[in-house]
């Protein structure tokens, strides 16, 4: 098809971001990357 160049929108900014990359980029330092611990678990870990 003879299309002109039209504006794209790349979801995820066009990157193959895994859960851990997304959280790291957001400045999160969660347990194992994406786990929220309660106080008791945090103490144990």
């Amino acid at each position, binding site marked *: 098809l003879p299309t002109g160049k039209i504006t794209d929108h*790349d979801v995820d900014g066009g990157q193959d971001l895994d859960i851990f990359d997304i959280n790291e980029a957001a400045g999160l330092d969660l347990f194992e990357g994406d786990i929220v611990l309660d106080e008791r678990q945090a103490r144990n870990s």
Partner: protein
Amino acid sequence: IIGDEYRWPTVIPYVLEDDLEINAKGVILKAFEQYRLKSCIDFKPWSGEANYISIFKGSGCFSSVGNRRVGKQRLSIGTNCDRIATIEHEFLHALGFWHEQSRADRDDYVRIMWDHISDGREHNFNTYNDTTSSSLGVPYDYGSMMHYSKNAFRNGTEPTIVTKIPAFSDVIGQRMEFSDSDLLKLNRLYNCTQGSTFLDSCDFERENICGMIQGPGDEQDWTREMKATGGPDTDYSNLGKCNGSGYFMHFNTGTANTGDTALLESRLLYPKRGYQCLQFFYYNSAGTSDKLKIHVREYNSTNPNGTLRFIKTIDSAPERLWQLHHVSLDVKTKFRVVFEGSKEGTGTTEGGGLSLDDINISETTCPEFVWRVKNFSELMTTTPTEKPIYSPPFTSKEGYSFQMQLFPNGVESNPGEIAVYANLVALEGETGQIWPCPWKQMTMMLMDQNPHIQKRMNNQRSVTTDPNRKITETDNFFWDDPRKVGPEVTAPDGLKYFQGPRAGTPVYLTHLRARSRDFIKNGDAIFLLSMEDVSHLTESQPTPATTVHPVTTPSSNNNCSSVECLNDGVCVMDEGIPSCRCVVGKDWWYYGDRCERKGSLMDKTILALASSLSVLGVMLVITIISVICVKKKYKNRDSGGVISNTYA
């Protein structure tokens, strides 16, 4: 995680918080559908239950592990987390699963490259012993969606996880769908015996043909074959690759008489939802006028022997190809699906007929559109980067047309990966739409053509038309009428239309993954496309904060309608008695019959300090009094006596 206290009920109450992106809300609902299809886990909008999962848009994708029994348990689906596998992954955490790499036996299967891990992130590679975490008797699973990806937490360019079997090095960290082992573990943990919305699947590999029967009142039978004269040469499940297997059902119209019919009926099925999707592969090598019709035989108390109801005729010209078909059903009582082959043409020939394989019946909605990309395997290697293949335009129920753009060899930014985009289309004569297009979710799903619907790991991405989104650096709306914001194009068949801007991803799937499983069968790929209206998801779901009386049963006096829980508390029926469940924070909580009092850790500290000081004060007073008394006593004795030397 070991411990019954961490389990949820099999029907999990949820709240979609208002801050979630609309696309994310739609994908969350799709993830719930996968849970329903593949396990007994179901989800229902929260209606006053004590514990529920509240999904919100946090700064990333995260969850707690298991049911923490805190009332509102939050799960974040933030920006870039709106992928079905990411959502399923976070919900598996919430259901009680840790990451696969933290299993006690992890080191038997992968090597952790400690030198390649970022400083301070080593703790993410701890393992749990089998008193804390159980693998439920399921072998270590490289294909689990709960596995880390090989580069997780790395400090440079080298991977942090190396699989001991090299073939799995690029398999770990898949974010497509549940693996078989993920489902086995989930179903074991929650004692599931079947999927909530699954009804039947048959690939005809077993002689009992899954309990299907030859219908009454017909002249011919369907027969179980490996090959038929006139086609097909092989079945679809195995494509004839395995010796001694590869069966399908065939109605030979070549030898039948004009007017003959053959009925093939499924076993009895028991619907719960009232709507179903029948999916099957169909090979038509019969005459052009021979037909395949779909009926349902419905049973109820007035018709114990069942009544046949016609659904539709499969409209498909003879072609040397197994074609995928979907039929939407709306059955509410016990039923069978009936395939009726009929010979309408005249004369007998040696071969040819109607063939069926890989039948699946589930209580789900059917995909709206099927786009088969022939020779996709070859296209991945021969198509230049940046060169798209366009699907034909598809028109949704609401009258919007769209198409998919497929880049088999990727785009400039990511060559060698499959890229997919969706765009709106304006066809000639189309009128009546609202522009910019409001809240339509377009889903592009590459079908894993495994014969069994519950074992499929489809790859899908969705984009939603946000009517407020603008094209960068312009005043035009992105999802406006393509006649206004897009060029006119002409398809190879001469069809002219306007093509709007496109949204999608250049990293849809790697070639390696695309060549895995059954994404490509006989060289072809099948994309299942849909455009669903998700505008209802812009509305708020009732939450504890907005609902004072979540559970009400007007007919009864002894219920939550007579109880008012304060401070966002929730009324629940506890063994028939209404009681308030109060909101709890990290270091504070509400309590009392109506959650009218607030407590906090600081209150407790002050109380403890005050008590200690009081006790100290009382002890001090007692000591002082005692000292004074003793002093007084001895003073009195001194002053009353006469001391003299009586022996002098």
